[in-house]
């Protein structure tokens, strides 16, 4: 049983109306994590609004962002929403070989990834291990493959899922499906 009550739409504070309309529009339903966060309208509104922005097309390819999320959750052994993000990646057309190869250390030698992608997976694992110790060499390499906006986005996605994985697991909530509506790969 989750650590807090999961609030249904009609139990939520009226101040959450706008963000819940956006949530249902994006995902097709209200994920359980959002139902738990709804116990605190201010935190629910700000976090959900950020997640709606962060999940989807951006400066990085959406499918690749999903792989970064999977690698991040694995790197801290958090299971909240892992399966749901694997499904999103699949629906976005990411080959199953890639989804498999981020789950462990195979990404290091996998022929399915570009050098730039591998460098970002290295960043994920280094941040999980010791964020204070990301080398200048790795950053130099990252900058030779990605622009500043893409690197900022990648770092935001990685670190946000260090939060979401932990909060989801601490609360004991489960979301096996995040999108109950058809994913629109190009839609903002």
């Amino acid at each position: 049983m989750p650590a807090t009550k999961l609030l249904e739409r009609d139990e939520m504070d009226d101040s959450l109306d706008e963000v819940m309309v956006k949530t249902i529009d994006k995902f097709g339903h209200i994920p359980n994590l959002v139902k738990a966060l709804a116990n605190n309208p201010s935190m629910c509104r700000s976090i959900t609004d950020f997640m709606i922005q962060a999940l989807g097309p951006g400066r990085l390819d959406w499918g690749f962002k999903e792989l970064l999320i999977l690698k991040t959750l694995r790197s801290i052994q958090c299971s909240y929403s892992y399966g749901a993000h694997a499904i999103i990646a699949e629906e976005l057309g990411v080959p199953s070989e890639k989804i498999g190869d981020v789950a462990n250390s195979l990404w290091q030698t996998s022929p399915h990834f570009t050098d730039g992608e591998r460098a970002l997976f290295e960043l994920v694992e280094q941040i999980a291990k010791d964020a204070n110790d990301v080398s200048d060499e790795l950053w130099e390499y990252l900058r030779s493959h990605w622009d500043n906006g893409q690197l900022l986005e990648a770092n935001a996605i990685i670190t946000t899922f260090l939060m979401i994985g932990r909060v989801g697991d601490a609360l004991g909530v489960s979301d096996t499906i995040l999108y109950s509506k058809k994913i629109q790969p190009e839609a903002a």
Partner: protein
Amino acid sequence: MAQLPYIKPEEADEVTKKVYDKAEARFDMVLNIFQITGNAPEIGEKMWEIFFEILKDGEVDWVTKELLILKATKMGDCLYCVTQHEAVSSKLGVSKEKQQDIVGVEYRDSPHYNEKEVAILDLCAHVVTNPEGIPADVWKRVKEHYDDGQVIEILTTIGAYIQVSKFGDAMGVELEDAFHGHDPVLFNEEPPSSPAAKQHLEHFMAKGE
């Protein structure tokens, strides 16, 4: 040097300028951690809203949230966050002695902490290290004192500061000049466990001399 450029207010686009104005109104300056998000305005705009909500009284008071921030970021060896929030905590009236006792499990037997605070600091330590393994006893003690809305505020404060501390450290975001000369409280009490963080601390101390 940070690994991505700081986008100065005069170089920022309209979205980022609004974020900077809000940050300056709240914290008297546009901190480096805000300036680095100018590289992707649409992310900074939404991400910082979470922190604007945390850094004020909510269903949990701001002072209590500062204790969680210090605990979570100290456990992650984040010199940037710990230094900033030692300053904020002091401004909000948290004594140096109380700040010192947040390291390790000192707070459990400290006269400066009550059982409500001990319960959520224990929770915080588990969320940082093993969120799937939070002992039932810890949850029981937390829930004796806090309702569901407060539990969400506590957990999201811890989570958000794990996020922003790793976000800043990974990019090498530096403490602003205004903090040079700050005498570390928590790191004097218990040095960083990461060798890289130790080096950052030594570098920071040398700058303040």
